């Protein structure tokens, strides 16, 4: 994880210093509009050829979409985060970089309500199509889930 700050320094010129190291020093914060370009660079120039995970976390003041990308040579992964506002969490889709993001973004949309702009087919994937709400949000009321 110690190479993260080095990586940020290498990458930052291409992004007008928009990349920031997180407080715990283990993640890169990226503005939403830069995510596709960053992922593309990581994949094609820095050997992070595999999208290991895509998840979303809800905090009190923000949503975070968390990406883990991985190298094949030593299985090192780095964590990339996009912080999104609570009211309209929208982030560009990275399906064009990794097709693997297709199902995982649909899952994040379904369960957490993150919108991925540019996604070819952003529908619910695990919950039924007529489901109301996004179950992984802390505000989701688990007592009234009955649909029948």
């Amino acid at each position, binding site marked *: 994880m110690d190479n993260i700050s080095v990586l940020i320094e290498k990458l930052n010129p291409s992004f007008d210093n928009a990349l920031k190291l997180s407080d*715990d020093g*283990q*993640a890169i914060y990226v503005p939403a509009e830069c995510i596709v370009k960053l992922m593309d660079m990581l994949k094609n120039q820095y050997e992070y*050829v*595999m*999208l*290991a*995970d895509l*998840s*979303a*976390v*809800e905090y009190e003041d923000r949503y975070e979409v*968390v990406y*883990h990308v*991985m190298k*094949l*040579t*030593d*299985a*090192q*992964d780095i*964590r990339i985060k996009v912080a999104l506002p609570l009211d309209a969490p929208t982030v560009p889709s990275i399906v064009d970089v*990794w*097709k*693997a993001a*297709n*199902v*995982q973004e649909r*899952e994040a949309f379904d*369960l957490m309500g993150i919108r991925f702009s540019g996604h070819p087919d952003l529908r*619910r*994937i*695990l*919950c*039924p199509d007529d489901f109301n709400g996004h*179950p*992984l949000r802390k505000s*989701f009321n*688990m007592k009234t889930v009955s649909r029948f």
Partner: protein
Amino acid sequence: MSMDSDNLNLVDDLNTQEFTINMGPYHPSTHGVFRAVLTLDGEVIVKEENVLGYLHRGMDKIAETRTYSQFVPYTARLDYLASALNNMGYVQTVEKLMGIEVPERAEYLRVIIAELQRIASHYLMLGSTTNDVNAVTGFLYYMHDREKVLDLLEMVTGARLTSNYMRIGGVIDDLPEEFFPKVKEFLAYLPGRLEMMETLILGNEIFQERMKNVGVITAQMALDYGVTGPNLRAAGVRFDLRKVAPYSAYGKIDFEVPVLKNGDAFDRYQIRLMEIKQSLRIIEQAVQQLPEGPIMAKVPKLIKPPAGEVFHKMEGARGILGFHLVSDGGPKPYRLHIHGPSFVNIGIMPAIAPGMLLQDFLAAFATIDVDMGEVDR
């Protein structure tokens, strides 16, 4: 394209009509409650769409309402065919977050159980694939041998399917005395059987015709679609987390990572047989090297990891099994995201299905080896 082009032209001249068929959620070959909406032109698939979620239990959400230890049995229900591997991934994630050192004996015990579980899981895949091409006899041979693995697992963990053997900080119980002769017997028994299966199934000409050049996933496609595990190795990428980034006791054990190059259904099938042989090697060495010592680290009764975030990945039976855990310092996980390999692997089906025959679809789907418990979580 599996059919000759002149055949397809004939179909066009006759002005036929495409039709949609729902394969699943209750279908003998979807291995659980999976639905594939197939658009067919005769027997040729034009379009395929996955419909998931019939088994969705909301594991991610359940985790937020349970304490860290309480969630261990739930992980066994994720990929119920490889429950010990899921247990292992989850407890390792929590240990990584808390910085717990697991005693060496416990690590070895974990490896033994995990590899037995991997064999059981691969065996089920081999068996069900064999059944899907209607070699029913082969299926029962595999089941017959899988029983022996399950007997061993039962002897140690007390359960055959959802073992729940791993604990945060170690394992729950030591190996019983009678396990050692039994496992020796098993290690001597299985290679001969594997060889027999190779000649019976892999050597069968009809089986080869059904499997070769069917559902080809190239290395580039596999990486693009995030396909991992045996499916990736069958496509020619030598990537196994047990070797590339050894966890638990894998670093001290000598084994190989088998790789094939075509990435078709046949290779995906064959690679499992090769991996079982390596798993046998690992078990043999682990039993030999098994050190003395405690099987449980000193962990507090109520587990409260420090606030923070961790992503842990391990080589599950079907690919990279990842756990992304966020803790707020409380007794329950703040957020747990489970990255099931089957969920990502199944995402490649719409890409490889068009142009296949209905029968090819089953062979391709079965060899990708998804477990609906893991897909839907």
